[in-house]
């Protein structure tokens, strides 16, 4: 009994010592400057953790705690709910354009002071996200393409056009994104079959696009919300064709998986992520330093080489070779999503879309 209790106490003591040793670096770090940065989880976050954040900390002395954020607008909802309670699960987050616009509607983003961003002039205008009154809500972080991807074992020849989605030969072979606001398939339909995304200006035009898109349904095996679900199936050839992110597909191909990403002749879908600062964050100063660092042409070039994203700064300002640039982008005019629709008509689009795929 006695021996037993001594043992237990020793064990407790050892445990406490161990725990405090583990906790110590965190305490030390808390005295330094730090910043919580949200980036998409998975391959994306891994390469930021490996290639970008340690260098940033070395250069500025600001420790980065990276937070894996979910894709789509799920993270926006969490940030919004948290901000209402005065909390910021991440100070700076990488947000897609639809999420940026929705966050603007509730003043979720702290305006960025462009005077504090040294390399601001290098940024391409279309990647700077502004409030209607001109304040800057977000600054371009990276841009990426959603392209036509195939399994190379199943498709020996790469497809050349988005029309492959409609081809009856591809019955039950496609994996497509499940939401209207992240698949951008309406834009793809308009560009491929209706002469351009201007066809979506009117509700009649949108309904026509829905009608045309409905013809794709028999070809779709999986409507995915979760990227891992499709990525796995694409690699194994279970679902050999679909729409997916050009950068991640490139990383998977580099790892030796039998996958390829093709820019169709109608263009890849170009979307981009902005760095945005939650209004609940107390770290505005560190956030500006972080954003300034990320806008440097050299860092943008590193992102292109390591993560596979396209730069948001002018290409001339970077030292990317033609070959490196071609790997992350394309000369084909991209399909640019109609972000305005997802703000002004979001509920209507969502309803029609759900009826289309579920009905």
């Amino acid at each position, binding site marked *: 009994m006695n021996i037993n209790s001594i043992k237990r106490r020793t064990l407790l003591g050892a445990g406490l010592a161990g725990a405090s040793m583990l906790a110590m670096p965190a305490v030390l770090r808390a005295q330094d400057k730090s910043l919580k940065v949200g980036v998409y989880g998975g391959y994306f976050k891994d390469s930021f953790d490996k290639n970008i954040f340690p260098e940033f900390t070395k250069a500025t002395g600001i420790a980065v705690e990276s937070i894996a954020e979910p894709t789509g607008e799920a993270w926006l909802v969490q940030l919004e709910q948290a901000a209402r309670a005065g909390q910021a699960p991440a100070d700076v987050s990488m947000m897609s354009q639809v999420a940026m616009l929705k966050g603007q509607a509730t003043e979720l983003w702290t305006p960025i002071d462009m005077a504090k961003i040294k390399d601001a002039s290098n940024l391409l205008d279309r990647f700077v996200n502004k409030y209607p009154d001109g304040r800057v809500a977000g600054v371009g972080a990276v841009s990426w393409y959603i392209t036509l991807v195939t399994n190379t074992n199943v498709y020996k020849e790469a497809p050349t056009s988005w029309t492959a989605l409609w081809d009856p030969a591809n019955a039950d072979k496609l994996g497509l994104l*499940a939401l209207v606001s992240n698949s951008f398939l309406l834009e793809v339909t308009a560009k491929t079959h209706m002469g351009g995304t201007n066809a979506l200006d009117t509700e009649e035009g949108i309904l026509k696009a829905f009608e045309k898109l409905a013809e794709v349904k028999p070809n779709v095996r999986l409507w995915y*919300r979760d990227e891992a679900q499709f990525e796995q199936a694409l690699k194994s050839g*279970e679902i050999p064709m679909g729409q997916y992110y050009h950068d991640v597909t490139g990383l998977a191909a580099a790892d030796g998986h039998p996958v390829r990403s093709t820019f169709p002749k109608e263009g890849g879908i170009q979307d981009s992520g902005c760095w945005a600062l939650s209004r609940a964050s107390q770290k505005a100063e560190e956030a500006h330093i972080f954003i300034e660092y990320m806008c440097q042409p050299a860092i943008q070039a590193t992102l292109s080489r390591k993560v596979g994203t396209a730069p948001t700064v002018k290409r001339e300002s970077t030292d990317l070779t033609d070959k490196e640039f071609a790997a992350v982008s394309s000369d084909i005019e991209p399909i640019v999503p109609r972000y305005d629709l997802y703000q*002004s008509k979001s509920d209507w689009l969502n*309803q029609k879309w759900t009826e289309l795929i579920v009905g």
Partner: protein
Amino acid sequence: MRREPPQTFADYSPLLFPAAMLTIFFVVPFGTMIAVSFFQRQQGGFYTPAFVFDNYARFLSAFFGGVLGFSMMMAIAVAICCVLLALPFTYLLTRMARRVQIVWLVALLSILSLSEVIIGFAWSTLFSRTAGITNILVALGLMSEAKALTPSFAAVLTGMVYQAFPYTVLVLFPALVRLDPTLTEAARTLGASPLKAFFTVVVPALRNTIVATLIMVFIFALGSYLLPQLLGRPQHWTLSVLITDQAIYQSNMPFAAAMAVFLVLVTLGLVALTVIAGRKGEAA
């Protein structure tokens, strides 16, 4: 030992803690949800406090009616399959040696530790064309070529029955253990076959337990939102999937809340009907 009914306030005091927990963790969140379901949706933004019926009005359509109907049907199918499988299984289990029972129960409990995601991905692999069970059938010469069994209704049903099966067994187990073995012995002495004794004696004796189990599995299955996405086509998505879509991806909390309230009300209604029907049956 005779139990006295509680007399004074102090006699009720042990109830205070659970009552407080229930209030904090169930009544308050549920009340918040009901309140939010009447709020005004700001399209492209979030929501503002108000008292409007728009969210309920949007739900009352043939489309959502169809989805609700499918979700109910699916949950009922899962409940029936689970009980049909678990009742004979648990009955046989209670007749086994203590040691064997423990092994089975531990194995079943370990299934409960698996998350829905793992169950979903495991079944989607088992049902896949490239790595699934049809490859074994091909190797045995029973099938000419491997094919994908997912996405399909059968795949969703299998996944959900698999997930709910351990609960079903754990709920049925105590009642079956307590079942008086002399009942079946009497039936056997009077000349009934084991099968006949099971259906004419065991099943009727457990009628209330079986109904309670059906209701429990039904409610459990109604909340499933991952398995229909992982194993089914969009037409197999349950209302819970659409609620998740609205809440997480469309940031439309008021509509999501309204759908959830509706689902809870319909569920409670169905449960009440079952209980009332059960009472009537007893009286007759």
